[in-house]
C-alpha cells in the first residue's frame, strides 16, 4: 500500500517545530497570545494594572528609603531616585519575561498537545507581553522624570534600540529556559535564584562608578542588562553619567555584552528548535 504515488505539490507533515509554516500566521499567533495574556493580567484582578505598577514601585520605595536615608548609597548621584526607578523598571521587564518564560511552554500544555503551531510562538509571546507591561510602566518613569525637571533630549530616542536589545537578551534566555523546563523542572528555582543574583550584580541600585575596583566595574558591564540600564541612565536621565562604553572601559568592549546576547539568541534558537518536536510528548 505504501507504493501509492504521492501527488506532486503536497507537502509532507514534518511534525511540530519551532518555526514551521507561514510567517504571517507566526506573527498573528505571537501577537494574539501576547495580547490575550496582557489582557488577562490587566483585567484578571480587581485592581488589574495597578498591581502591575505597584510591584516595581514598592521595590522602588523600599530601596529609595534604604539607600538615601539609611545607607546613603545614592548620595552624590544626580537624580538617584530616577536612576533607581528606571533601573527597576528595566529589571522588572527582564525578570518578568524570563521568569514567565520558564514555565510558559508547560503552562500552554493545552495548546501544545492539541494544535500544530510553531512552538517558538510561546516564548516570544511572553517577551512581547512583557514589552506591553514595560511600555505602561515606563510611562510612570517618564512622568517621574518630567516631574523631577529632567530635560527632554533627543538622546531619549536611544531608549528604543536599547529596549529592543534588552528584549533580544531576554528572548535568547527565554528560549533556553522554556525548553529546558519541559524536561528539568529544577530550572524554575534555579532561575529565581539567578534573577536575584542578576539584580544585585547589574548596577541597578548603586552607581557603577562607585565600585572601587575598575576591573569589577568592567566585569559588571559585560552583563547586557547592566550595560543597557547604564546607557539609559546616560541617555535619558543624566548626561553626566558614564556611558555604557565608558563604564566597560572602551566602546569596543561593548562587543562583549552584544556578543553574549547574540550567542544566547543563537544557542537559544538552536536548542529550542532541537527540542520543539518532542515537547508535546514530554509534557
Amino acid at each position, binding site marked *: *500500500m*505504501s507504493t*501509492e504515488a*504521492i*501527488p506532486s*505539490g*503536497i*507537502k*509532507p*507533515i*514534518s*511534525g*511540530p517545530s519551532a518555526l*514551521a509554516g507561514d510567517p*504571517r*500566521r507566526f506573527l*498573528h*499567533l505571537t*501577537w*494574539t*497570545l501576547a495580547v*490575550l495574556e496582557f*489582557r*488577562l493580567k490587566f483585567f*484578571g484582578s480587581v485592581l488589574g494594572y495597578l498591581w502591575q505598577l505597584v510591584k516595581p514601585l514598592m521595590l522602588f520605595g523600599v530601596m529609595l528609603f534604604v539607600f538615601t536615608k539609611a545607607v546613603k548609597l545614592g548620595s552624590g548621584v544626580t537624580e538617584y531616585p530616577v536612576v533607581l526607578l528606571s533601573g527597576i523598571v528595566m529589571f522588572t521587564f527582564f525578570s518578568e519575561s524570563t521568569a514567565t518564560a520558564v514555565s510558559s511552554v508547560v503552562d500552554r500544555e*493545552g*495548546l*501544545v*498537545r*492539541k*494544535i*500544530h*503551531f510553531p512552538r517558538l510562538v510561546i516564548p516570544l509571546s511572553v517577551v512581547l507581553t512583557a514589552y506591553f507591561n514595560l511600555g505602561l510602566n515606563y510611562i510612570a518613569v517618564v512622568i517621574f522624570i518630567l516631574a523631577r525637571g529632567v530635560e527632554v533630549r533627543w538622546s531619549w530616542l536611544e531608549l528604543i534600540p536599547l529596549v529592543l536589545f534588552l528584549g533580544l537578551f531576554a528572548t535568547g534566555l527565554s528560549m533556553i529556559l522554556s525548553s529546558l523546563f519541559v524536561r528539568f523542572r529544577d530550572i524554575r528555582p534555579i532561575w529565581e535564584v539567578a534573577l536575584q543574583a542578576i539584580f544585585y550584580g547589574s548596577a541597578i541600585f548603586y552607581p557603577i562608578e562607585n565600585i572601587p575596583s575598575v576591573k569589577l566595574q568592567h566585569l559588571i558591564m559585560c552583563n547586557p542588562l547592566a550595560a543597557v540600564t547604564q546607557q539609559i541612565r546616560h541617555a535619558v536621565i543624566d548626561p553626566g553619567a558614564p556611558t555604557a562604553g565608558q563604564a566597560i572601559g572602551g566602546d569596543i568592549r561593548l562587543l562583549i555584552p552584544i556578543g553574549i546576547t547574540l550567542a544566547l539568541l543563537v544557542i537559544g534558537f538552536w536548542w529550542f528548535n532541537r527540542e520543539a*518536536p*518532542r515537547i*508535546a*510528548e514530554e509534557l
Partner: protein
Amino acid sequence: MHPFKRTGYEHMSALNEISFSVGNGEFFGIVGRNGSGKSTLLKCLAGIYKADEGEIYMDGRVATFIELGVGFNPDLVARDNIMLNAVMLGLSPAEARKRVDEVIDFAELHEFTDLKLKNYSSGMQVRLAFSVMIQVDADILLIDEVLAVGDAAFQQKCFDEFHRLRDEKKTILFVTHDMPSVNRFCDRAMLLERGDMMLLGDPDEITDQYIKVNFPQATLDAAVAEGHARPDQAAVIVEAWFEEERGDRHEYLPQGRPCSFKALVAFNQEVEDPAFSMMLKDDEGSNIFGTSTIWKNEESTGHFMPGDQAVFGVSFDNRLSAGRYYATVQVAQRGGGQVVLDKRENAATMVTTATRSTGGVVDLPHDVEVRRPVRAPRPAPEPAGDASR
C-alpha cells in the same frame, strides 16, 4: 540515591508501519481499543507528535479536535478562547473576530460568552471546541472521540454536522468507539490493535471485527467465573449491556429501531423460578420504563442449579427520545414476599440517537394532520386532529 541517575524506561512504539491514504472528500474512520494507538496516529497526522519513521502527506488546511478539545485557556473568557483557537487553526485575527459570533451561535452558548472557561462544564467546553473546529473552514478535519462526552442533543448536533461536512465533501478522519456512527458516516475505516493496522476496508467489516476484538469470549468467561466464586450469594448479575437489532453490543442505539437489553446472571445456589426485572432511568434518575418477568405471562422462568447461567433479555422498539439512559437490573426469589438476590443500579447505559427531537420523554409512533372542518351548518365540527395511527 544518585541525583542524576536516570530512571529506567521501556521503549514503547505506539504505531508500527501504518500506511494508508485517504482521498479528497472521504470520511475515514479509525477505530480500535483503548491504547491501540488511534489518538497517537491522529496526533502524528495533526503534526503534534513527530513520527520517528515514515512520512505523512497532507494537502490542505487541517483543523483538529483532539482529547476533547482544541486547547483552551481556562482563565480566558469564551470569546477570547475562540479568537485564540481560530488563530491557532490558521485564521487571521480579522477573520477570527468575524467568526466568533458564528461559533457561539453554533455552540448555543450565548449567555456564557463572557464567562471564563474554567467555569464551563466539560460538556460546554466540548461544545465550544467542536464549534470552533467546525467554523474555521478547514479542508481536513481530524476528530477524536467527539461523541464520548456531551449531552444527547449535542451528539445529535454532531451527527447533523457530520452529514453537512459529508455533503460539503470535506475530508474527515474520525476516531471513535461508536460503531454505529462508523457504519453511518464512514466511507472506509481502519482498525488498529496495539499499534498495528489490523484491517482497512468497509465500515461493516471493520465494525464486525472490532466487536470480535473488543468483547472476546474469554473476558466474559472470566466474569462468569468470578460471579460463581461467591457461593454465599444465590445469584450474581455478571454483566449487563444493550444490543442493537443485529445482536451486536452497542451503547448508541438509533431511535425507532428494535434493540434489546441483556443481563447475564450466574447462579450459585438452587433457585426455582427467579423473577428478573429491569428499569430504565434517564439522566435525572426518573424512571422511564420498567418491566419484569412477573408482569409478563411467563409464570415459570426455570429451575436453576449452582453453576447455571441465565441471560435475561428485554427486546423493545427504541421509542425513547434522544438522550442517555441507564438500566437497573434485579434478580429476585419469588414466593411469599420477594427476596432480592442481586441488584445492580445502572448496570448498563445506552444513548438514543435521533434525527429529530420532539421534546418529550418518548417518541411514540404517531401521525399529525390538520384538516379543515366540513363547511356544513352543523352546530359542532368534527375534531380537527387525530393523533392515532
